[in-house]
């Protein structure tokens, strides 16, 4: 492959980055022990309390057996073996001690099995519980939170942070074992021989000293390694999502070079992190050697003085070999814990996002409603002191079709969202079928109001499943009828497997118009009294357009409809048009009436803009100014 064509224009760096310009501003390491996070985790552990107690018991038992093994060896050597056959019953005693040893080993096996199984399974459960809790919570939190949070960010909490906790949970209970083992060994050493024990343990403070110096340096290196990883991954994600543009504009080579920079950064930072991890090994091993040397010289001397049994010296040597294992794993624990605390913080942050809209305890779920929509002095906004809708009142009679038009930001989408109670109003009230929406259950609103969004979102799965989405119990015939009614049947049958055709991610194997028709069919199957429709802005080819107009007519039949209209045909077909500007209804009436009144609507209409949404800002400004003048 050829190299990127060096630009003749200049040597300046390209106007290009891969991955986001914005750095990940999330903390990777939290405090070592966050009482709040641990407390919250505790709530989720409560159902597994009994099993946790068993697990802790097993961990303790496992640790005790580990402590016991060198002691048995010591007993075997001193009492049975060391005398060199002088004691007649030496052989018999040895047999008994070996039997005890085997018993301890069996016990060790059982305890090991129990601790690993239980801990692993509880950790698994807990993670799935947490993930589910988060997922379930995201289904009900306020949409304004969902609006301003990227899907990728939420996904990294649902996956990455949950996995970070897994590591912690699986190892945390063993950390208890490590602690016990550490103190157990110290206790045993001191009780076997206080002098030798104290001398042997004198190497430990040196290790702690080394750790204290090492830790902040290593932490910085690890942090950097993680940062470069997430930067590299962000760049990879971008290349996957934007692959079409990349290939069309032949950015492959420029991007590759930029990605290489990030990947090289990542490589170097990880290699440097690896230096920090491994530099401790010779220190720990050297100290172990020193401890053994102390035992050999001092212990050996004591043995020579007959002040110490040879078996005790052997036991010391065994303990020292294992002594640094818990210290080592405890330091690994340390950074796992920090990561877990940060992850936990983020998880509970999601779980604590306020649910602004929830069912009242006595919320109603009427079987039938009359299909009217009423806004009474509604004021609403997303940011305090910046109302998007200002004291709006209107009524849509059952069966009536009302078109909402107005420039971007005039409050059309908010009106639609409020009708479905995606948000609660600041002031005033909204009634659907005569009931205040706050008195109805959300499920009830979902059943009586069908919504068609501007971007026809489809789920992966078959076409059948997608149309059935709003009403799972709908029969196959009902679905085919709906598809026929909106004119989608023909193209569905032309697809490889008809209604069983699997859709690609986001319905990528269908055209925009086809997706639109499917979302109409989905709304039709829902068979609700009220339809809220946000018309797609993109103009679709005339054939599909014709289909869509027909489908729309079919969809609006016998229904109350509120349509955010972009197409003139739809607007003109409405019973009534409401023109919104800056959160207020400035004109209302049918097409002829509005044209005659010479207001904003007629001016926009005469400007020949097919859609009111894409009017260049300067034009919109001039128009509304002249409107204010009138």
């Amino acid at each position, binding site marked *: 492959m050829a190299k990127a064509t060096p630009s003749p224009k200049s040597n300046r760096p390209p106007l290009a980055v891969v991955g986001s310009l914005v750095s990940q501003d999330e903390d990777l390491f939290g405090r070592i022990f966050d009482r709040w996070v641990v407390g919250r985790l505790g709530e989720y552990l409560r159902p597994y309390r009994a099993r946790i107690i068993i697990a802790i018991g097993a961990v303790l038992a496992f640790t005790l057996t580990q402590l016991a093994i060198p002691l048995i060896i010591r007993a075997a050597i001193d009492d049975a073996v060391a005398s060199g056959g002088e004691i007649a019953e030496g052989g018999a005693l040895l047999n008994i001690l070996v039997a005890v040893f085997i018993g301890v080993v069996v016990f060790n096996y059982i305890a090991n099995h129990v601790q*690993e199984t239980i801990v692993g399974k509880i950790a698994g459960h807990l993670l799935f519980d947490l993930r*589910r809790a988060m997922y379930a919570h995201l289904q009900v939190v306020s949409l304004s939170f969902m609006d301003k949070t990227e899907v990728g960010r939420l996904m990294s909490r649902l996956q990455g942070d949950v996995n970070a906790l897994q590591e912690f949970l699986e190892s945390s209970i063993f950390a208890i074992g490590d602690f016990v083992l550490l103190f157990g060994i110290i206790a045993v050493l001191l009780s076997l021989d206080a002098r030798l024990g104290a001398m042997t343990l004198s190497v430990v403070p040196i290790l702690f000293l080394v750790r204290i110096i090492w830790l902040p340096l290593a932490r910085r290196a690890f942090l950097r390694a993680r940062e470069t990883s997430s930067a590299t991954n962000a760049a*990879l994600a971008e290349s996957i999502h934007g692959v079409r543009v990349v290939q069309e504009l032949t950015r492959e080579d420029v991007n590759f070079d930029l990605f290489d920079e990030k990947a090289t950064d990542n*490589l170097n930072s990880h*290699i440097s992190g690896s230096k920090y991890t491994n530099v401790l090994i010779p220190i720990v091993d050297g100290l172990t050697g*020193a401890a*053994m040397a102390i035992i*050999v010289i001092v212990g050996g001397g004591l043995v020579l003085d007959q002040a110490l049994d040879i078996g005790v010296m052997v036991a010391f040597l065994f303990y020292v070999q294992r002594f640094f294992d818990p210290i080592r794993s405890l330091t690994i624990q340390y950074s796992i814990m920090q990561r877990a605390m940060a992850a936990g913080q983020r998880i509970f942050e999601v779980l604590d996002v306020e649910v602004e809209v929830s069912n009242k305890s006595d919320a109603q779920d009427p079987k039938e409603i009359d299909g009217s929509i009423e806004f009474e002095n509604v004021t609403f906004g997303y940011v305090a002191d910046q109302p998007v809708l200002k004291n709006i009142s209107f009524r849509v009679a059952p069966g009536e079709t009302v078109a909402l038009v107005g420039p971007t930001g005039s409050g059309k989408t908010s009106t639609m969202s409020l009708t479905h109670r995606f948000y609660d109003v600041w002031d005033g009230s909204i009634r659907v079928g005569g009931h205040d929406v706050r008195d109805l259950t959300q*499920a009830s609103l979902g059943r009586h109001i069908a919504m068609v969004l501007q971007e026809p979102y489809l789920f992966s799965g078959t076409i059948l499943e997608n149309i059935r989405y709003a009403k799972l119990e709908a029969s196959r015939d009902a679905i085919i009828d709906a598809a026929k009614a909106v004119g989608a049947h023909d193209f569905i049958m032309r697809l490889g497997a008809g209604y069983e055709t699997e859709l690609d991610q986001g319905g990528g194997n269908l055209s925009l118009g086809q997706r639109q028709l499917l979302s109409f069919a989905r709304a039709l199957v829902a068979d609700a009294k009220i339809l809220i429709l946000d018309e797609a802005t993109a103009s679709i080819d005339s054939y599909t357009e014709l289909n869509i107009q027909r489908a729309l007519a079919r969809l609006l039949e016998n229904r109350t409809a509120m349509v955010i209209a972009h197409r003139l045909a739809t607007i003109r077909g409405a019973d009534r048009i409401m023109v919104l500007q800056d959160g207020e209804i400035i004109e209302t009436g049918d097409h002829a009436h509005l044209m005659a009144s010479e207001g904003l609507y007629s001016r926009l209409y005469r400007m020949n803009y097919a859609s009111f949404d894409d009017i260049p800002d300067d034009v919109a400004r001039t128009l509304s100014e002249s409107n204010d003048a009138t």
Partner: protein
Amino acid sequence: MKSKKTSHGKSQLDINSESTYRIAVSKLDTNVLWRITKMAFRHRLRMAIGIVSTILAATFQLFVPQFLGRAVDQAHGLLTLTSDRATTEDALMTTALLLISASLLRGLFTMCQNYQGEAVGHLIGYNLRLSYYRQLQRLSFSWHDKVHSGDLMARGILDIEGVRMWVTTGVLRFFLLTILIGGGAIILFRIDIELGVVALAFVPIVGFRVSVARLKLRDTWMRLQDQMAKLTQIMEENLSGIRVVRAFAAQDHELNRFDKSSRIALAVTHERIGLFVRYTTQMTFVYFLSMGLVLWVGGHKVIDGEITLGELTQFLAFMSILQMPVRQIGWMINSIARASTCGGRLFNILDLEPSIADKPDATPLRITDGVLKFENVDFRYPAGDGDQRTLSGISLEARPGKTIGIVGPPGSGKSTIAQLIGRYYDVTGGSVTIDGQDIRNVSLESLRANVRIVQQEPFLFTSSVNHNVAYGDPWAGRSDIEQSAATAQLHNYISNLPSGYATLVGERGVSLSGGQRQRMSIARGVLLDGAVLVFDDSTASIDAATEQRIKSALKDIVKERAVIIIAHRLSSLMHADEILFLEEGRIVERGDHDQLLARSGRYAELYSLQTRLSDTDGEN
């Protein structure tokens, strides 16, 4: 840069290879590991240092039990009155020094071993990451259509991680264990064969368990990976489509879907934990049993005076050294399972042959007159693609100053023509030429640098407006960028943004409307040179009035290039010099606007349909 392997005999079409990759994975277990290992050995010096360090580290570790045994014998020796005190103390001192040095050296070499191993692992990760990135950028659009982006991300992050770990947890640990056990065996057998056999009895048992466990664990790993991918997809779709979910109050349905998938994933997780725990605890158990046997048999041998107490200590100390490695065998199995699964998933993608690639003797495209020609072009989508659309007998010629318009019902093959010009597919009959050169004979890069396609659904990068407009030419000057934005009727809007051209757009920045995004895409296209400019339905969201302004701004550019406008709104292309009406992959009518209207055929029919749909035709 990744070299192309043509010897693979893989299907020419990456779509086909893609559809078979899942089946291939389970059979390639050892091949995959071997391949990763070979990649590791490409870093010869580091691997050599790593292996030598491993061998030395193991050797020095083997010295430790011997020195311990010696120390015990020395200390014990005095009791049995075989030597005098002064020499014993000297001897103990020597042993102590030897112990410190052996430990320290072992530590130093282990450090080297780990460091080099991890470095090689990171280098492999780095190389894989680059190959993977490059490969994803090369694979065709149709392949990308069929693969879930979440899955691609998982491979690029988790699978590379799994492969990377193989060097330290697999290759080097293998050397370490072999030498520890092999060297230990020699030392022990030399002291006492019988006791040596007892001490090492656990090795074959563990070895057997390992080979069984490896396959089973690998299987659960794969199932877990698949199940997690499904779960990820469910969550991602739910969050992306949250408004639909809310609109139909489908939360319960969504939770059910999640629970169903989640429960399976949890069950597989438990299965994996169960298997793993069973194997590792059994291994530890067998190891400890061996230790008990050593104590028993060895103890009796000491009593009987066959071996010394020091030698027994040496046996036991040796076994105690092995405690960590035995545990590590468990991790090694895990790592084998993980590396082969992850590697398999990665290699499946890396081995795909892009369906479109340069011929070996491809030359750069030379532009002389800028004439684009379709000569009797036939095209059908690759079998198994499920796409029935075809083109047949398409001939056309566009040149600077001669614009071609293409119109037709959905599915008639309009966009396919655009894809053929950029060679995103190869024609199955006839040829596409630019200035007499068949586009299959020129290098892809030079072709695509000359063919600019402006798409209907543009992608915005989370970056500044500047970067987005200059995406195709990152070295473009400020005035060029502003000029292009002005041509696309976007300059005024951008200038009014808080930071002008430096304003961040995309997911975390200012969000643009559909029409603004399309105008951004047009600005990107016109910034670039190139002989051919294709508008693939790229003004659909732009209203007619703005489109007219863009058109008049484009006038000069159009004069210098061959332009093809694909659109369904007739106002977008009615001024083309020649308009082709496409139906089911064939040109059914051609001519200019007036000629076509006069024919009262399909074009005229469409024209009246559009005037009926909106009696503003955007032209008066």
